[in-house]
């Protein structure tokens, strides 16, 4: 069986800066992979190339064996790639429930004419979408916030909502950019328990994380980037004993995590 994701020799340049240099790795179905690396290593850039936000300068991206390099972000979403952003991004003026309903977009029949006429079958569809969105909210334990506006949420709930929106697309591959960053210890634990539990049951997950304790506790495997190059690819548990990784993180407090 093909791996869910294959990154083959991906490079990304911004003018003179090589943000990614020939990065290659695979992610197997059902895996929970950590993408690790110091600030500016190219982790978010890698997510952007996989999710179609900024195509790689060189190299290929394969999704379950199909070359998807250069496809647009919304096309990749329809092919089953979902992601969250490092900077918490929500539909700020919409409610929590409406945010997740938008996340269901790829499962929506647009049927504009039915909608203009307000046909019963259209309203039935809309009702079913809301029900489905409720299911996702319940899964992440934030259903109580359903009618609150997204821009009024505390960070912990907002971050769970970003995951809920992505999960609502029912992806094959979910890319989470620092889901636990900025959260309190308890909030981070709640987030990671969900990601390693309910979320992981539904899709393959790649997440960016700086905290080695979290990586070791929750992830199977880790890929480490430094200056846009892959310096480690192996068991998450072995990470803290790898000389190259220790070197890259030398003096960085999170190592103690």
């Amino acid at each position, binding site marked *: 069986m093909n791996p869910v994701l294959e990154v083959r020799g991906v490079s990304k340049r911004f003018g003179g800066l090589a943000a990614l240099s020939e990065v290659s790795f695979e992610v197997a179905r059902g895996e929970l992979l950590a993408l690790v690396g110091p600030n500016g290593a190219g982790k978010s850039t890698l997510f952007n190339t996989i*999710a179609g*936000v900024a195509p790689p300068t060189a190299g290929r991206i394969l999704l379950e064996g199909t070359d998807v390099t250069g496809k*647009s*972000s*919304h096309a990749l*979403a*329809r092919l089953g790639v*979902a*992601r969250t*952003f490092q*900077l918490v*991004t*929500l*539909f*700020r*003026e*919409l409610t929590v429930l*409406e945010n997740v*309903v*938008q*996340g*269901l*977009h*790829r499962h*929506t029949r*647009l*049927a*504009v004419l039915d*909608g*203009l*006429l*307000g046909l019963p079958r*259209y309203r039935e569809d*809309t009702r079913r*979408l809301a029900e489905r969105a409720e299911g996702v909210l319940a899964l992440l334990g934030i259903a109580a916030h359903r009618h609150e506006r997204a821009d009024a949420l505390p960070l912990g709930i907002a971050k769970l909502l970003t995951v809920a*929106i*992505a999960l*609502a*697309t029912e992806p094959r591959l979910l890319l989470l950019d620092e889901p636990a960053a900025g959260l309190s210890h308890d909030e981070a634990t709640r987030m990671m328990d969900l990601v390693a539990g309910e979320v992981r049951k539904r899709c393959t997950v790649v997440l960016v994380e700086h905290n080695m304790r979290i990586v070791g506790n929750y992830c199977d495997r880790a890929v480490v980037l430094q200056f846009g190059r892959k310096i480690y690819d192996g068991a998450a548990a072995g990470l803290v004993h790898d000389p190259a990784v220790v070197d890259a993180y030398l003096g960085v407090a999170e190592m103690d995590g």
Partner: protein
Amino acid sequence: MTVARVAALLLALIVLPFVATPYALHVAIVVLFNVTYTAALYAVLRMGYLSLGHAGFIALGAYTCVILSVRLGVSPWLGIPAGGLVAGLFAWGLGALTLRLRGIYFALAIFAFGEIVTAFFRAFDWFGGPAGIPGVPRPAFLGTPLASHFAFYWPVLVVAVLGIAILYRLQYTRFGAALLTLKTAESERLAESVGIPAARYKTANFVVSCVITGTMGTLHAQYLLFVNPQVFGSTMSTDLLIYAMVGGLAGFWGPILGAGLLTALGEQLFSVGYWKTLVYAAILMVVIMVLPGGLADLPRRLRAHFGAPR
């Protein structure tokens, strides 16, 4: 709005021509023009885009219909959908090019477009040049041209009601809801990441707005019996924005309210020429400074100020 209210409003609009004086009917027709344009403009404002040249699409519809009927002898009836179609085609091309721009860049691109449209018609004699084209025929019903205000009111009412109904209902469709996710570049990135084809949706919505605008523009030219580059120029574009702002951008009915009130007022000031511009500008300033939510926000403000009625 409830079904009962819509029915009452429709009934009033149908009874109106039977009881109104010709002058009142003239005002009603102009109100229907402007209300439709403003509702169409609001559809674009609602997705976060400031169209500073929307009158360009009125001009495209109007000139298409006039050229077809005056120069090429095509039926004025056919000119009506043709004007909408041409406005829509231009909106498609222009939208695809400019809707990736944000804020002031988009606003100025559309402003430039509006200027180009009118400058183009002004430049060529075949399109009427600076003086425009007089003698625009009105469509005929059962062999009689719709010459009176009473007769011409009906096609205007039909296009206004259809256009506004489409624009109103569209907001509550899943398409209309998805448009709200495209208001900022950041939010649009998230929308794309869940599979919303942002560029396509924005262009589609822009096209709908401009088709309705252009279609009404054809009737506008037929009503005036002439077109020239000035009537549908940048002043018209800014007037539409003033209507929308004064009415309030929080909901669908604010811009319609603003367009209705200011147009009716503007018609009273028409005989005194430049007063209209002055009064509009002054009202806009006052509303922006003391009532930023627009007139539609007034009831809520009053309730907040005097306490909710028990």
